[in-house]
């Protein structure tokens, strides 16, 4: 029976007690281990921040500071003090995203952060690693969430573009990860034309390219003549879909790339005409498959729809419990 009593879950983060450091804390701390660059996991103001070089680059872009950072490459093990060692392993969520393996007193604990199991041309794939305690997310922790193959969803977008040569397709996509993945998948499906961007997506796309993820021809909507946008694919943050900004576009087909699009009512609430079920989180099948493959003695569930995942663990005779963490958001995936 795993105890891992040296790991404490507080409402604002996971505390690694012997090393006195925190994983993805929601408030400033002396030392933070950060799994990935999304704002609800990577906050500014820590004394020292340990993360992958890509995540640190993303944080530097967003918060403008590079002080007190310590890069950790995938597979690299860093001693944290207090007899704790930490290893960053790819999580397949977004560029630079990591699971963090913690070892102390003969026990192995993995914090997955956010993850997915499907191939993604913009980041390294999830690495299955054995451990005693698996601390997993459960954003899409309901059996109704089955993300279809990404090719099908990108196919829907391309079909909508072809069917509406006088309109444009406006795709709401989260600025970090989702936007770049949608562009990369469009390229993989053979879409060679310009992809137009809302200004809020530009810097992150450029950073991805600097870090070696090729995204093809990208231009800003603000630089376009109106007729250039007919028949074009345009990406914007989800919040801009129904904002005044979109009024300048030629009769957009409103699309959104998100795992939540699986549920019709969620898509309708957003006023989405073309729901694209593209998620950077594990769906139900990936979550349960991961627990089975990692096969931990105990599973702790951090955030999302943990009730159903706990029920699944119970049905499969697995020890599990929910951690009450605050501050993680899942609305825009």
């Amino acid at each position, binding site marked *: 029976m795993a105890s891992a009593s040296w790991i404490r879950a507080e409402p604002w983060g996971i505390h690694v007690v012997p090393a006195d450091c925190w994983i993805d804390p929601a408030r400033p701390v002396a030392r933070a281990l950060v799994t990935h660059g999304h704002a609800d996991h990577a906050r500014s103001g820590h004394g020292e921040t340990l993360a992958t070089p890509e995540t640190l680059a993303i944080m530097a872009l967003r918060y403008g500071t590079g002080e007190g950072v310590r890069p950790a490459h995938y597979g690299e093990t860093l001693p944290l003090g207090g007899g704790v060692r930490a290893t960053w392993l790819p999580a397949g969520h977004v560029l630079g995203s990591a699971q963090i393996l913690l070892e102390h007193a003969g026990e192995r604990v993995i914090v997955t952060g956010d993850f997915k199991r499907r191939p993604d041309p913009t980041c390294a794939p999830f690495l299955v690693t054995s451990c005693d305690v698996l601390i997993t997310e459960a954003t899409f922790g*309901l*059996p*109704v*969430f*089955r993300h279809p193959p990404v090719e099908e969803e990108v196919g829907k977008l391309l079909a909508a573009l072809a069917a509406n040569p006088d309109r444009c397709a406006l795709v709401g996509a989260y600025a970090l990860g989702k936007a770049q993945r949608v562009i990369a998948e469009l390229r993989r499906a053979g879409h060679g034309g310009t992809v137009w961007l809302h200004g809020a997506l530009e810097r992150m796309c450029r950073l991805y390219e600097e870090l070696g993820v090729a995204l093809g021809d990208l231009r800003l909507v603000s630089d376009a003549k109106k007729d250039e946008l007919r028949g074009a694919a345009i990406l914007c943050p989800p919040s801009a879909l*129904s*904002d*005044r900004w*979109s*009024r300048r576009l030629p009769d957009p087909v*409103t699309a959104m790339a998100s795992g939540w699009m*699986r*549920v*019709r*009512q969620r*898509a*309708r609430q957003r*006023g*989405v*005409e*073309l*729901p694209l079920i593209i998620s950077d989180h594990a769906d139900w099948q990936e979550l349960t498959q991961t627990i089975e493959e990692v096969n931990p003695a105990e599973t702790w569930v951090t955030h999302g*729809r943990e*009730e*159903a995942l706990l*029920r*699944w663990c119970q*049905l499969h005779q697995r020890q599990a419990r929910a951690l009450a963490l605050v501050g993680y958001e899942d609305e825009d995936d």
Partner: protein
Amino acid sequence: MRAFSALLDALVYTTSRNAKLRLIVDYLRAAPDPHRGWALAALTGALDFPAVKPATIRNLLTERVDPVLYALSRDYVGDTAETASLLWPQPDGPREPEPSLDETVQALSRMTRMSVMSELPRLLDRLDANGGFALIKLATGAMRIGISARLAKLAFAQAFDVAVEDVEEYWHGQEPPYTALFAWAAHGGEPPSAEHVPLFRPFMLAHPLEDAEVDLTDYAAEWKWDGIRVQLVHAGGETRLYSRSGDNISHTFLEVAAALSFPAVLDGELLVRGAHQGGEQGGAASFNALQQRLGRKTVSKAMLADYPAFVRLYDVLILDGEDLRELPWHLRRERLEALMERLDPARFDLSALISADNFEHLAAIQEGARDDAIEGVMLKRRDSPYVAGRRTGLWYKWKRDPLLVDCVLMYAQRGSGKRSSFYSDFTFGCWDGDPGQGAELLPVGKAYFGFTDEELKWLDRHVRNHTVNRFGPVRETDKSLVFEVAFDSVHESRRHKSGLAMRFPRISRIRADKPAHEADRIESLRALVRD
């Protein structure tokens, strides 16, 4: 089934009426018979498969999925059909070929309470999640995708380039999959005949009078009653009651339907007995009382006793097999007056004509009618035939001037479709006392039209610049802007905290010049309640 489930899916995500219409038109042109007939029946709620109940779906699922996981999923998704289609276990190995819509409908209609538990799963196994969703929606008859019968008929007419009045007329005698209807419209055959079926005939409608005046030697005047316009049809031993949209509402007003027992088509206003609306001739209650009975599938005895319904007759279209629609109005009126003695006075009365010396006299009578909760006056050309729809110059409706009240903008919500980037739905309130003494605003209504596109832009900017709070798509404003709100009537209601609700409210003027504390109080609005 694939084309049908794709249609359903597209309709779910489409908010604009025109875009929905286009989707149905395209489908009806492309899909073959009899599949498109079944689809049309499904969209208009004309199919019923009594063996399949929502509980059937739940039982099928909880045999296959852990009941706790099912319940959590159902709570989250909020729709049984969608939950079931997403949770349905994928069969091992390749799927059998997908059933066609016709095959699906035939299979569903053969199912019994006993066989459904084994046969419905076999169909579900052959479908993907979208197909499963369409199948369950079809089987349980709960489409809820905002397609009215009227829209479906319009789509049918557009798809095959025939007149929508003809579609309305021929539609009602037909049963799904409407073989005769498609044979006529899509394949150039003879129109369907249905002499012995109680068919709906499209209503004759009126234009607003606006500022025009008419000569009362050419036009007859009668009251415009505030109920539901209905058509009573008796044919082949059956009586049906149709609403303005052509929906059969006989089951809600069985006592009225039962009271007509000879072949006829009558046009009138459905009302409920009460003290308002023409008290001297028996009297009808306000529209609010009638609403107590609308939309109910079953009507209790108490409801029948408390809200007895009757029809105030305007016109006769067909009588004893004779089509009177080509006759001038004054001759139809004579026939109508003569047939009143054949009708039960408890269920029918005659809408009286207003005798006025001239137009000014009529205007004075109309103005004085405010207290009777009558909607206004109808003006009918004495020589007008009964024709479907609105024909210029024949009938006019002359509504009373609306009631007006000054309210303060409290909340604004984003619109949908073309208006999705605009705050265009406005909730407004009145003061519950003296604003100088710390009174508060209470919401009294909500309106989303009455303003021009230019005014909408201005209002949108005002909302964005005066937001004090956000609740999802709703913004609370600083309550500084006054609207003059026009409405037809106001009645008691529990919908708003003020205890009042308006009928047909619209923004009449934006009073940016008026300070908010000068807006009206709840008590002035309450004084306008008439029931």
